[in-house]
């Protein structure tokens, strides 16, 4: 639509206080803040009903169980920012977990068992990136196909045998330095790293550029293909790390594809405020989205929601979160007259 008359904009040399205030307001209106608020409010509500929810151990469980979803959602967010999507992540998670487990069981060094999912994750995602960037297959189609291939391939190879007798050192996610489960460290550290990287690296900014205006990015000398490869590579890295958190949590590894996990990961990213059309979204939001989903899941148990209605209530809360986000954006847009 037609733009508004160019009203003089606030002076950039505004008072520091004014700037701080504006920054604060922007922060209060951000999806991250609303999510964090949602998590806190929901937790308080559940806590009021059942104080046991507030126990340290329970909160740590929720965070710890969010970790592998959150880490995968970091990668997913980056992919979605470029306007793509990856629905093969759950299948990949299953495949990589099996690879890690098999290596560990067959007496390869533990570090190799941890490294392998990352390496294979990156390789497989780079292949997907290649299909998307160079062969111009829409990401949803490429990953739909990959999902089939990985899922079928996994069963074909393993026949679904569980992996037992893993060496003691393998269980990275079970460690609890300073009494806090390892996955929580990973989740926060990776989110922080990714947030910094997305904000402070040239590539990180270029990712937003490609998602926001593909043609413009090309004309300003950014190679879209390279960015897409990078993005899928990062996704592979994140899925790889997510796999380690996931697979080293259990004494035995179920070498199948965990059901429905791709939807949870995408939902976490979407709740986190990533625009499905590309161009905007933050990794911190994705992490909070994952935590919110787990908080909802757990909270429902604590307030005695009938097991039959668990899923419906979860669906409703997710719908609610999404709507809040939509209305928030709507308000922002109408505030500037668009």
């Amino acid at each position: 639509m037609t733009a508004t008359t160019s009203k003089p904009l606030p002076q950039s040399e505004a008072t520091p206080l004014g700037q701080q205030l504006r920054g604060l307001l922007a922060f209060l209106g951000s999806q991250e803040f609303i999510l964090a608020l949602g998590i806190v409010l929901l937790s308080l509500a559940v806590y009021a009903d059942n104080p046991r929810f507030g126990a340290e151990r329970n909160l740590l469980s929720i965070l710890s169980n969010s970790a592998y979803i959150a880490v995968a959602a970091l990668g997913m967010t980056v992919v979605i920012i470029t306007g793509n999507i990856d629905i093969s992540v759950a299948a990949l998670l299953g495949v990589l977990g099996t690879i890690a487990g098999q290596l560990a069981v067959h007496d390869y060094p533990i570090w190799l068992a941890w490294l392998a999912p990352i390496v294979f994750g990156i390789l497989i995602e780079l292949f997907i990136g290649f299909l998307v960037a160079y062969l111009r297959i829409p990401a949803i189609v490429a990953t739909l196909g990959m999902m089939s291939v990985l899922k079928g391939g996994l069963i074909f190879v393993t026949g679904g045998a569980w992996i037992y007798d893993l060496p003691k050192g393998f269980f990275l996610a079970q460690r609890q330095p300073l009494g806090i489960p390892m996955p929580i460290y990973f989740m926060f550290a990776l989110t922080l790293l990714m947030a910094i990287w997305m904000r402070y690296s040239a590539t990180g900014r270029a990712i937003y550029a490609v998602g926001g205006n593909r043609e413009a990015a090309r004309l300003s000398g950014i190679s879209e293909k390279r960015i897409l490869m990078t993005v899928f590579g990062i996704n592979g890295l994140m899925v790889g790390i997510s796999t380690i958190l996931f697979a080293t949590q259990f004494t035995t590894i179920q070498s199948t594809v965990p059901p429905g996990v791709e939807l949870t990961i995408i939902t976490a990213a979407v709740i986190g405020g990533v625009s499905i059309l590309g161009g905007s979204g933050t990794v911190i939001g994705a992490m909070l989205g994952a935590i919110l989903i787990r908080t909802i899941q757990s909270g429902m148990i604590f307030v005695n929601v009938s097991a039959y209605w668990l899923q419906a209530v979860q669906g409703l809360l997710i719908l609610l979160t999404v709507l809040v986000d939509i209305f928030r954006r709507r308000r922002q847009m109408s505030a500037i007259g668009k």
Partner: protein
Amino acid sequence: MTTQEAPQERSNLQLSIRNAFLGQEGVLVVIMVIAVIVLSFTSENFLTVDNLLNQARLMTEVGLIALPMTYIIITGGIDLSVGSIFGFSAVMLGWLWKEQSFPLEAAILASIVIGTLSGLLNALFIVYVRVPPIIMTLATLALYRGMAYGISQARSARGYPDWFFQFGQRDFLGIPTQIWFLIVASIFAWILLARTPFGRGIYAIGNNEIGARFSGIPVNRYLLFIYVFAGFMSAVAAFLFTSRVSTTRADSGTGMELDVIAAVVLGGTSIVGGSGTIHGTLLGLVLLQLLKNGLSLSGVKGDATIVVIGVVLILSILINNYIQKRFRQ
């Protein structure tokens, strides 16, 4: 300087012949012919009337939902909640009949109405609140599935009267009954898309929604219709499915949305919107079913079959991309 008649007609003809061979549909036909030839050599039971009719029976439910999904994807949208609407409607059919003592006929109708309303709920939010379709239906994917579990208390309803099985398990005029549903719905959907102002509007919306709006096309009404239609067809499919398997389960249709989308996308409908055909979707549907069946009959196991399907999906788009680039500029 206006167009010159004669060369234009000829080039039109050439163009349409080329298009017919070079589109995704053409690629599919070629793959299908190859697949049928290979598979009929590897299994003598593959190319028999009985087997093919039976396969058609099995693909009906996905096929019915793929029709409105084609519309939705052409407009650049997507509906991830169809599998959940399917399960929800099926459960409501059984629940209303068994727990609420509705006459079965009324329960069938009511379940279809409920499926349609579920589609309407998606539609209202997508059209009027402008929630992106993928997000809205991602949320209702969980919601409707949850409703199915909650209302049925995860119990299945069984013990339907004999006449009910006419739709899913018996034949009509020598052809499985539900295939008639698919045939009628396909013809309807094809005509609607290819031959009516509505269809043209759908393409226009997919290519340029604002432009369509400015051209006086009732964009909102069309969008409302297609998501409602998806709900309706999911419910009809659920009814046929219930009749076929004689029970309703809260987990019916889990993951079905991906089968539906795969058929539509394989059929050449662009996932970013703007192009696609009903016959393409049907070809995609049939090819998927033939592969599943034919490979199984040839002794390929289920796990390997889904690998093959994944590869075919990617390859067919790849070939089509290549052809578009190489020959059509």
